[in-house]
């Protein structure tokens, strides 16, 4: 019994990590219907920026967030206004292809700049610290990841529904042209949305970098779970993304409990079942 409780707990914590990967994707898709293939590589970029910051300033990775978050937000704004806004239109294919190209460019630029060496952010004692209760041992870092994911989703939700910035996001999401007529500069709003998404990505990158070692090539592999979490939760829904991440994580750990070979398969099956039963995801916000 306690074993299965352990499995569910570990799965839920894993789901927090997936939700963290997915939050930026979900946000961008919700606001501008942009599928960002380079998202995984942007997470890795954030981890590398965190690495440079911790090395140069000799600070803890969490402190590095003070530098990395604004930096990633700036990159996001520039990227959106400089490149991605030019590709947005009725056809969803051009932005898809551009982000795909961006992914290749990022990987190779990181390889040039940082070499292929695996790197890791050194979080100190917190990396191996754990809490135990009743035969269950839970790592502090995964727990923190989950708490951060929940807090971040709550914060994004607040920005979306309680601030004028969020009103702008929702307005361009509903109808870009009408929003433009009403005096919103959609190019600027999209830029802000991407900035916010990459600020979130910065947190994901730092936590990923403390959790395991990373190299320029691992970004793509992280993307699929992010996408699945977004789809399970329903496109554009932030709390849905968290739920999607948790469902995916728990399905994977239960699968792995039965046989490790089933870990990913179980996650994918959960994803397919949700798609078959509710093609728009569990909490869809976007009507098709």
């Amino acid at each position, binding site marked *: 019994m306690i*074993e299965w409780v*352990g*499995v569910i707990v*570990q*799965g839920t914590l*894993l789901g927090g*990590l*997936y939700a963290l990967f997915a939050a930026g994707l979900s946000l961008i898709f919700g606001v501008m219907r942009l599928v960002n293939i380079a998202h995984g590589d942007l997470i890795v970029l954030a981890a590398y920026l965190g690495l440079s910051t911790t090395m140069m300033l000799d600070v803890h990775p969490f402190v590095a967030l003070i530098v990395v978050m604004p930096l990633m937000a700036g990159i996001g704004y520039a990227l959106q206004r400089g490149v991605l806004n030019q590709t947005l239109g009725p056809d969803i294919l051009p932005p898809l292809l551009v982000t795909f190209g961006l992914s290749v460019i990022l990987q*190779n630029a990181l*390889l040039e700049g940082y*070499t*292929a*060496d*695996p*790197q*890791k952010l*050194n979080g100190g004692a917190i*990396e*191996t*610290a*754990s809490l*135990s209760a009743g035969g269950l*041992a*839970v*790592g*502090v*870092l*995964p727990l923190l990841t989950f708490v951060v994911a929940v807090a971040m989703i709550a914060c994004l939700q607040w920005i979306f529904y309680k601030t004028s910035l969020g009103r702008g996001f929702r307005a361009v999401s509903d109808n870009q042209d009408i929003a433009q007529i009403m005096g919103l500069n959609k190019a600027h709003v999209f830029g802000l949305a991407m900035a916010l998404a990459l600020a979130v990505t910065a947190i994901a990158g730092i936590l990923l970098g403390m*959790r*395991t*070692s*990373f*190299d320029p*090539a*691992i970004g793509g*592999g*992280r993307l699929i*779970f992010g996408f699945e979490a977004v789809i399970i939760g329903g496109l554009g829904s932030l709390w849905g993304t968290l739920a999607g991440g948790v469902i995916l*994580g728990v399905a*994977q*750990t239960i699968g*792995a*409990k039965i*046989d*490790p*070979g089933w*870990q*990913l398969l179980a996650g994918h099956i959960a994803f397919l079942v949700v798609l078959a039963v509710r093609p728009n995801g569990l909490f869809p916000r976007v009507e098709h």
Partner: protein
Amino acid sequence: MTTTTRRHVLAGLAAWVAAPAILRSTRAYAQNPTIKVGFVTPSTGPLAGFAEADDHILEGLRAHFAGGVMNNGKSYNIDIIKKDSQSNPNRAAEVAADLILGDEVDIITAAATPDTTNPVADQAEINEVPCITTDAPWQPYFFGRGGNPAEGFQYTYHFFWGLEDVIANFTGLWDDSGVTKKVGGLFPNDADGNAWGDPNLGLPPALAAAGYELTDPGRFQPLNDDFSNFISAFKDAGCEIVTGVMIPPDFGTFWSQAAQQGFNPKVATIGKALLFPSAIEALGPRGVGLTTEIWWSPNHPFVSSLTGISAGDLAVGYSSATGRPWTQPIGFKHALFEVVADVVSRSEDLDDYEANTAAIKSTNISTIVGDVNWSTGPVPNVSKTPLVSGQWQDNGDGAELVITNNKHAPQIPVGGELQLLG
């Protein structure tokens, strides 16, 4: 003043058309003839760590080859053409075909994992071009390409160690440690993981024969984010040893989670993930004490047949030129071109692919990684180099790979004793 007549034009045209037929593309004898050697390597992508020393090694070799290599009393230049496989087997096959058909190389070489060696060797075999590869265990190279031990391949040759050497080294290492003979196995669902975990040819039967009890929960997908089920299985079984063949991110995830969930093995011997100093550095203090296989080190008592440089000097040369620590592939890259130079010097007719292949087959030299001799291999086309194992130990200013077990290759001296983790 000459006038252009119809005849002049026709004669010129005919000469121009006939020129390729009359002037057969022969070597330009005025200067030294050139032997072209193709080299496929993963300069970019996930395998780039294996190739980071390429440019340094090639630079040194090009300087050495500048004087030419003698064959039958004549001096030949060796021109090495490097192409990037981008760590992708399909791309490796493509650039190999390009080298063979486009650059018309005389010999093709490749190194770093079966993903590079196999597609290149396959292309060479089809196009009947002599091929020398290294830096991939021989079973995935030979059996992975559908090799038949009774027949072997015609044009493709490989030198490295094999799974049996890893198994002998790992069990040797554990015998030294004196811990409980219970082993947890971490084998991913990829070419290496399936070969190592194979119930008939891999670690399971060999460990059973050596008296070790293996707990193998199953194959996981590479880039796994959660090992909690493995950890609880190992804890339940009371494992004191962990082994496997993993990529660095997977080992990083496993190692953190093991600590978080209170699983502290006394020995952790992992293939592939712990080869490079950078991977150990990334793990911080918890990288010290981990154990791995060692194919080559500056302490190997071998010298280059080409330049006479010792293993130690080659590593120091790399470190001082690049400011980076030595890595194991350095020696093998150098050895690869030692073999090429040896073949070029012995071949009976360098214009003949068959003669070049025959020269590869009859190779018998002592290189910087050990002896290369294709008549003594476990299967045709494979020559084995010695393998030892050791531990990353703290030498005061960082982790250093120390050879602790040489039972399998006693000619290589040990540098220290195994220390238990924790």
